């Protein structure tokens, strides 16, 4: 081992420090090629016959990309075609400094065996290490290091193959670097050149990211945007208070408007409004930006109009017109918001976006606009030669940059997902857009599954309580295959009742730290879409070994209480157990058994006991102030063959639903208390913060319009006033009010008890709460199981479980995944609703006004649980006279005044004019307002007939 030292000087804030680090050079770093016999590499990565067919290089070769190629062309490198690539350590380090996401992706590529990517530690190799020369910049040195390493490889391989055919090809887009490399005797190509030469891969071409000097050709010379400030000026500006730093959120409904959330504490202003393209200045949703505030007299109110960017092509002229429309808004001084403009981008948060291509008007054009599915993302201009094939397909596109003279950002094509409207494709899109991991489980993950046939062993019997004799049963929705909870209830000899909740013991199968565990932790939750389930754990566990099906022996984690007949807990006891469920019932079956007085078997008795106790528990809970909220939920009846939805049905709630729920709550609360007592620092709990009073404004206003008072001082007051709020002849009113109340709530979140002091669960009115009862579909429950197992000495602990920072990080991931899963679920329901209405044609329905907006009313159709907007301003026609009163809130359209909760009749149809965003269109039938009530001409004949009927 040889040793040498380098001296690195580094400056840190203020002073100049001389930092001396050792740098060891080694001669045991192998080249990683199969050809080489001298290097004693045990598992060479690079293949002997490395052929990517290319016009330029007809010989087998390895690729060495330089840093910029990796950074910008990562989409190409990820392609399965590109194999046998040598990633130099210096390149990897530079990538790591400059872009974390690209670093992650290149690392994933390196780990993939089929890709044959090899990392060569050139900086520690005796022959490839170079010292920085006098006057040489760090970048130049790194470029030189890359060339030296490439040269070393060339010579090394030539020697090993006796001057044979195996060569290395350096890829660089830097002109001077290329020249120097050529002088140095290397084979070097520009990335574009090389990719173009590849045989039989035209679509790889489209994935090439555009280089800055290509972009000039694409766009006109007119400057559209102000220049972004350099980072140094932004930083000093932020320091002296001139600029504010925050995350940009584009407005979903109005592409000319956005908000910047300032995430610094102690700042008075935490939201800055941006209006107009110039002021948005190329910020894309989720970017971290620096904004400059306008003086107060320029502050405006957010416009509540809906504007969509659907100009036919990339003409820039018509913008002015729409912008004027924006500015023409009359502004009421009370609602003025801090307004400003973006001066610079601190961090771009671009990811590949799903969407569709809108083909250029010119037939032969290769530049097209891409419309992302997420309306907050601007349209992206891409270059492709296969536009004809891509029309009507869902594709993925990544943004490369947004020059200041271009109306739209430039990007490149990444992947084709399939044809739009296709159920598979749409599901894929909504999973991708909501960042739901949905790939099949990898071999590494599956290798940790128990071997089949699996059975309960002697050891299990020894350490677990044998509860197989108990009359346990499960109650679930129909068609449920992942049964994670079962119940039992029996009378004890002393007259008290024993109630048990038995939860699938998933933590027995998923051991901490292995690949299976990591995958489950990263997925966080099972996602239920219409007709599809994205499992958190492999199916063998979720639907078989962990599923507490009837008449099989299963491992469980039991929570057993001794209660008196008033449902007061006398004793609680937790144990790992073995159970044998006697019946898997649906809610309806269970209800039938309870109601059918002729049935006298053990299961029915047990159910009746549970039901009786549940009622007492529920009553007690509600007395404490637990909220009963409502949301319109629907179920689709799915055709078993075509998987098309054939009918819609609102979810029905039976007594048994609430029975199961009640005991799950009880178990969760008991466990939460237990793990918190045992681990005050690292218990994983769930809290539901009480919402700020302002959230309730809309609810109070809405109730007032019907002369009702809603008290929102506490959960209890709210629950009581909701119970009392009824209007005669309007039975659905209370449900509407509850739906509205649900929208006022905050999100419930997981957290680690050591990191927070407020544990209260507002909705359940419980001082402490956690999730324990669904470990098959939620990762949080697995952690809670592990904590509880440690608390009762049934299992051993491990480092990460007791680390509150790691747990807090885990909680953040779980919260994010849960949120995204919810969004994905809603999106899936929305998509199936569309499919449903596509098949149905036009329907007339009764609905209620849920919200009143400036130019629209939002209507809820209780029958379908469907929400939609009726717009009153139309592009083609002159708008009716509108006057909006935000106090009511009411909207006066011509002569008719719309109030919240008014009953209306609408036609529902599918608007397929925009294939990307197909949406449900609603049009008003009743009340009749001339010029408004039937704004969709095609639906006129159908709409009129029913109108006569009613």
């Amino acid at each position: 081992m040889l040793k040498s030292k380098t001296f690195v000087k580094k400056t840190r804030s203020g002073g100049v420090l001389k930092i001396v680090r050792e740098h060891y050079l080694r001669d045991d770093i192998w080249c990683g090629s199969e050809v080489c016999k001298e290097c004693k590499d045990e598992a060479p990565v690079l293949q002997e016959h490395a052929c990517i067919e290319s016009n330029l290089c007809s010989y087998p070769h390895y690729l060495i990309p330089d840093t910029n190629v990796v950074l910008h062309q990562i989409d190409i490198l990820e392609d399965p075609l590109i194999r046998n690539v040598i990633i130099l350590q210096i390149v990897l380090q530079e990538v790591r400094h400059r872009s974390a996401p690209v670093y992650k992706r290149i690392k994933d590529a390196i780990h993939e065996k089929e890709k044959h990517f090899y990392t060569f530690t050139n900086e520690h190799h005796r022959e490839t290490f170079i010292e920085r020369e006098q006057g040489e910049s760090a970048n130049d040195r790194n470029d030189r290091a890359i060339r030296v390493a490439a040269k070393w490889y060339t010579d090394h391989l030539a020697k090993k193959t006796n001057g044979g055919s195996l060569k290395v090809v350096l890829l660089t887009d830097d002109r001077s670097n290329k020249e120097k490399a050529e002088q140095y005797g290397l084979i070097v190509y520009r990335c574009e050149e090389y990719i173009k030469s590849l045989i039989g891969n035209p679509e790889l071409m489209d994935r090439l990211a555009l280089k800055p000097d290509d972009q000039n050709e694409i766009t006109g010379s007119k400057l559209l945007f102000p220049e972004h400030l350099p980072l140094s000026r932004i930083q000093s500006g932020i320091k002296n208070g001139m600029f504010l730093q925050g995350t940009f959120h584009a407005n979903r409904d109005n592409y000319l408007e956005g908000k910047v959330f300032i995430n610094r504490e102690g700042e008075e202003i935490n939201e800055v409004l941006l209006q107009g393209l110039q002021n948005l200045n190329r910020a894309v949703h989720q970017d971290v930006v620096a904004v400059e505030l306008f003086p107060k007299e320029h502050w405006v109110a957010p416009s509540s109009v809906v504007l969509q960017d659907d100009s036919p092509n990339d003409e820039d002229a018509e913008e002015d017109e729409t912008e004027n429309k924006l500015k023409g808004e009359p502004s009421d001084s009370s609602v003025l918001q801090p307004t400003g403009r973006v001066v610079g981008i601190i961090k771009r948060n671009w990811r590949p976006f799903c969407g569709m291509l809108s083909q250029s008007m010119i037939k032969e054009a290769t530049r097209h606009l891409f419309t992302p599915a997420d309306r907050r993302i601007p349209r992206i201009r891409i270059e492709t030669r296969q536009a004809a094939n891509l029309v009507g397909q869902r594709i993925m596109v990544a943004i490369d940059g947004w020059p200041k003279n271009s109306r739209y950002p430039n990007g490149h094509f990444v992947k084709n997902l399939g044809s739009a409207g296709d159920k598979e494709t749409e599901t894929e899109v909504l999973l991708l857009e909501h960042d739901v991991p949905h790939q099949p489980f990898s071999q590494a993950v599956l290798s940790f599954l128990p071997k089949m046939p699996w059975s309960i062993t002697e050891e299990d019997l020894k350490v677990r309580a044998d509860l197989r004799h108990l009359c346990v049963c499960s109650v679930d929705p129909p068609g449920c295959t992942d049964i994670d909870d079962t119940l039992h209830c029996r009378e004890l000899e002393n007259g008290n009742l024993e109630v048990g909740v038995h939860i699938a013991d998933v933590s027995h199968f998923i051991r901490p730290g292995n690949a299976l565990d990591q995958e489950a932790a990263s997925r966080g939750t099972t996602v239920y879409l219409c007709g599809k389930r994205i499992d958190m754990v492999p199916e063998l566990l979720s639907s078989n070994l962990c599923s507490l099906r009837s008449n099989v022996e299963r491992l469980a984690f039991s929570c057993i209480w001794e209660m008196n007949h008033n449902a007061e807990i006398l004793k609680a006891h937790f144990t790992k157990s073995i159970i044998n469920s006697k019946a898997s019932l649906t809610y309806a079956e269970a209800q039938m058994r309870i109601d059918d007085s002729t049935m006298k078997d053990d299961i029915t008795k047990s159910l009746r006991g549970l039901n009786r106790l549940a009622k007492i528990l529920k009553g007690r809970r509600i007395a404490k102030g637990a909220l009963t909220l409502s949301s319109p939920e629907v179920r689709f009846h799915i055709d078993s063959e075509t998987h098309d939805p054939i009918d819609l049905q609102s979810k029905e709630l039976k007594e048994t639903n609430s029975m199961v729920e009640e005991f799950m709550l009880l178990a969760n609360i008991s466990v939460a208390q237990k793990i918190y007592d045992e681990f005050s620092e690292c218990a994983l709990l769930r809290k539901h913060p009480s919402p700020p009073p302002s959230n309730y404004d809309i609810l109070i206003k809405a109730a007032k319009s019907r002369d009702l008072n809603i008290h929102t001082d506490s959960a209890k007051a709210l629950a009581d006033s909701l119970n009392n709020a009824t209007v005669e002849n309007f039975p659905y009113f209370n449900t509407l009010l509850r739906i509205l109340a649900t929208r006022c709530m905050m999100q419930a979140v997981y957290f680690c008890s050591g990191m927070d002091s407020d544990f209260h669960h507002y909705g359940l009115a419980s001082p402490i709460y956690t999730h324990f009862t669904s470990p098959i579909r939620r990762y949080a429950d697995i952690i809670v199981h592990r904590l509880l197992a440690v608390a009762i000495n049934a299992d051993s602990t491990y480092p990460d479980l007791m680390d509150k920072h790691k747990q807090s990080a885990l909680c953040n991931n779980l919260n994010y995944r849960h949120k995204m899963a919810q969004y994905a679920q809603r999106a899936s329901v929305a998509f199936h609703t569309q499919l449903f209405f596509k098949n149905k044609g036009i329907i007339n329905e009764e609905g209620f006004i849920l919200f009143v907006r400036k130019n629209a009313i939002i209507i809820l159709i209780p029958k379908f649980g469907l929400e939609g907007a009726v717009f009153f301003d139309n592009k083609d026609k002159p708008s009716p006279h509108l006057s909006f009163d935000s106090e009511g809130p009411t909207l006066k359209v011509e002569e008719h005044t719309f109030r919240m909760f008014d009953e209306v009749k609408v036609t529902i149809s599918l608007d397929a004019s925009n294939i990307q965003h197909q949406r449900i269109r609603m049009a008003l039938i009743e009340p009749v307002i001339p010029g408004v009530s039937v704004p969709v001409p095609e639906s006129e004949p159908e709409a009129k007939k029913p109108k006569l009927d009613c």
Partner: protein
Amino acid sequence: MAGLELLSDQGYRLDGRKASELRKVQARTSVFAQADGSAYLEQGNTKALAVVYGPHETRGSRSKSLHDRAVINCQYSMATFSTAERKRRPHGDRKSSEMSLHLKQTFEAAVLTELYPRSQIDIYVKILQADGGNYSACVNAATLALVDAGIPMRDYVCACTAGFVEDTPLADLCHAEESGGGTSLALALLPRSGNIALLQMDARLHQDHLDALIEAAMTACKGLSKVLDGVVRQHLEEVSVLIRD
């Protein structure tokens, strides 16, 4: 910018070592003529100077002396120029008195103090350049100085640090690795018997990992003992050549 990657996927550390490899160790003994024993030791960029006086009569108050064994007096200090930022280091600050105490405990376990009742052995160590593992460099240098002074010991005392990154124990941490926020464990070993003279760890570490970490540190100490033994033997050879002349 992301933090430093302490261990790359290829298994190399920041400075190019593998997880179990030590830094280069170089040492010389008898660097001062006035002292009874002295040694200079470099462990990578960490450089330590150790000087030993004694055994001699107890200085200062009599009450300190012990009737059945010798008192070991250790003093640890760092040169002002030893770290990247120049800093005056007064004697007796908390850190150096703690270090002195640790050194004292270490050598009380190794030196055959019972041979010299009512006397005192002074060990002075100074860090000339600090680049991680100051304690272990001091112990190793002091061991050589004690050998040089001809003070009977049970065995060499070899010390080494070990850290824990991405479930892999790293031997002999450098400054960048030590300040990376991970665990650092210092261990002083009597290599032949395998007895531990001192074990010290500040950060939190799960119990499951402790054995692996101690094992790594012990292996490193054994490696060091070979180096130290080589230094002593070489010195002996040089001296004996001189005497023969």
